[in-house]
Each structure stands twice: as structure tokens, then as C-alpha cells.
């Protein structure tokens, strides 16, 4: 590896510890061991990087938050009514869905039980709807969390 190629890598991937290819890493290190020019570059770059590590984290003054609040709360006040309704729709549907589906599943199961007791008139129906159908009906309430009766999300806990 010559200096040009070595510098290319040292300036970025090498100094940032991004070289995953062991062959390339080895080539750079072999070059560094024998080239004081590239060793100087490595040392300088490391020292440059270290200098920025001490930069302080800064906090905005309190008034900034107050100004942000006043900017975002004013337009809302003007259109509070439609704003509230529009913003509530996704949350309402989220709240209603599991309970609604669970209720629907319960009604379906009760209806099936009732129908099965009305045998022999409903023989065809009760055999057509198998155990598998019952399971899939109950699982209609599954919203991805594994169960229709899962009320463990923070949002659900908040409203329950």
C-alpha cells in the first residue's frame, strides 16, 4: 500500500474505526508501521477529533419553550372544535376496536352455542362450523399483540 491509498483510508474509515475488512486493516497497519508521514497524519487526526470531544452540551433558555408553546397553542385555540374532533378519530378507533371485536366474537360464540342446542334442525350448520372456525373468530380481536384481551399497552392502560 502506498501513501496515497493509505491516506485515503486513514482520513476516514481508519480513524473512525470503520474498517471491518481484516486484510485492508492489516495493510494500513503495516504501512503505518513503516511510514512516519502517515503516522503523523494519524496522530494529528486523532488529536483533532479529541479536541471536539470536550465541546459542551448547551441548554436553550426557558423562554424558548414558552415561545414554542404560544406559537403552537394559539392556532389550535382558533380551531379547537374541529381540531379536537379530527385528532380524536384515530384514538377513538384504536380504543373501540379491541372491545368491539371481542364483543362481536362473544355474540358469535353465543349464537353458535344456541344453534348447536337447536339440533337436529341445525345439524348442517353446527358441523359446518368447526372448532377451527371458532378459534379464528375469537382471534379476530387480535390486533397484533397476541390477544383480543390484551390491555397492556400504555395507551389502553391510560384509558382503562
Amino acid at each position: 500500500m502506498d501513501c496515497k491509498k493509505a491516506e485515503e483510508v486513514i482520513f476516514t474509515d481508519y480513524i473512525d474505526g470503520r474498517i471491518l475488512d481484516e486484510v485492508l486493516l492489516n495493510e494500513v497497519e503495516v504501512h503505518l508501521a513503516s511510514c512516519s508521514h502517515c503516522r503523523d497524519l494519524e496522530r494529528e487526526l486523532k488529536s483533532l477529533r479529541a479536541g471536539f470531544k470536550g465541546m459542551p452540551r448547551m441548554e436553550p433558555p426557558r423562554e424558548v419553550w414558552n415561545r414554542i408553546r404560544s406559537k403552537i397553542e394559539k392556532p389550535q385555540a382558533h380551531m379547537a372544535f374541529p381540531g379536537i374532533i379530527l385528532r380524536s378519530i384515530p384514538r377513538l378507533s384504536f380504543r373501540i376496536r379491541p372491545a368491539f371485536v371481542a364483543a362481536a366474537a362473544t355474540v358469535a360464540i353465543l349464537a353458535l352455542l344456541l344453534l348447536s342446542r337447536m339440533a337436529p334442525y341445525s345439524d348442517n350448520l353446527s358441523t359446518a362450523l368447526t372448532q377451527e372456525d371458532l378459534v379464528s373468530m375469537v382471534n379476530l380481536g387480535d390486533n397484533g399483540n397476541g390477544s383480543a384481551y390484551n390491555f397492556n399497552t400504555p395507551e389502553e392502560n391510560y384509558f382503562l
Partner: protein
Amino acid sequence: MLDISREIIKKAASGDMGAFGEIYRTFSSTVYTVAFNITHNRQDAEEVTQDVFVKIFKKLDNFKFESAFSTWLYRITMNAAINTYHSRARRNKGTVNIENVDERIMQKAGASEDSQVIETALTEAGEILNHLSSEHRSCIVLREIEGLDYKEMAEVLNIPLNTVRTRLKRAREALRAYCAERGACHGL
């Protein structure tokens, strides 16, 4: 990179000010620090912080979780800070940036141990940053101060990974040239 739960973002998107306050508490220091390191002006950094949070509040509904929330926030912050920096530079063309000088004097006036640290950083690393082009500066800020990796930088700056590498190399060359010209960069 810092991040925040989906739940908080969704609540804030539906207008919950408590949740939005939590987003502000989590990220305001990052936004303000980046804005200051780009603009080098406290007043501009405050305005950028304000604009960024007003903007994200309005756009939270459109955030689709396709990238990390912090990536999105860094991108909005970087764009706002660079625009502010350029518009001030245009206004100040040919004049000394008096406010920057004031800024340093004010920093020196409050001489607690903490402000000693801030003062040194502002007069050394900060001043050196001030001599880089905004393109190079944004690379150094994201990589060296914010600690983003190349992939995150590519997403924030909306450029290919190879361009990140090229810009970072040029930025480091520029830093090195500036330090060589000055004799040395104390502490750098």
C-alpha cells in the same frame, strides 16, 4: 443517537402537550447545541430551536417511523441552522460579526467552573469550526460532536454514504490546513 418511544410521538401527534413537552425535554439540548455550533450565535440558535420544534409539532402527523425520530429531527435542525447561518452571513457581508464577539465576552463574564469549560470550547474548537464552510462544518458537527455514524450522517444530510466519506475527508483536510496555518490548534 437519542431516541424516544413511538407512544410519546403518537400522543404528541394527537395534540397531547405533555407528550410534546417530553419530546422537547429529550431533544432541546441537542437541537440547540447543533444550532449554536452551526450558527455561532445564541440568538440564531434560539430561533432555530423554536422554529424546529414548531415545525415538528405541525408535521408529527406525517412522521411515518421510516427513519429514527432523531434522524428526522437532526435533518430539520441542520437545514434550519444552515439556512439561518447563510441568511445572517448575507446580511453581515463585509462586516465583523459583532454579535459573535459579544457572545464570547458574555461567556467570559459568567466565570463559574462550568463556564470556564464552555469558554475554552467556544474559543478553541468553536472558533475553529467557524472557519469551515457550512458543508464541512455540518459534517464535523454531526460526526465529532454529535457522534453520528456514516449511515446516520447520510440519512440526515440526504447524501450517499460515499459522499459522506468524501466530505468528511475534505472537512478534516480543511481543519488540518487551518491549524497548520495558525501554527497549531491549542487543544486540537
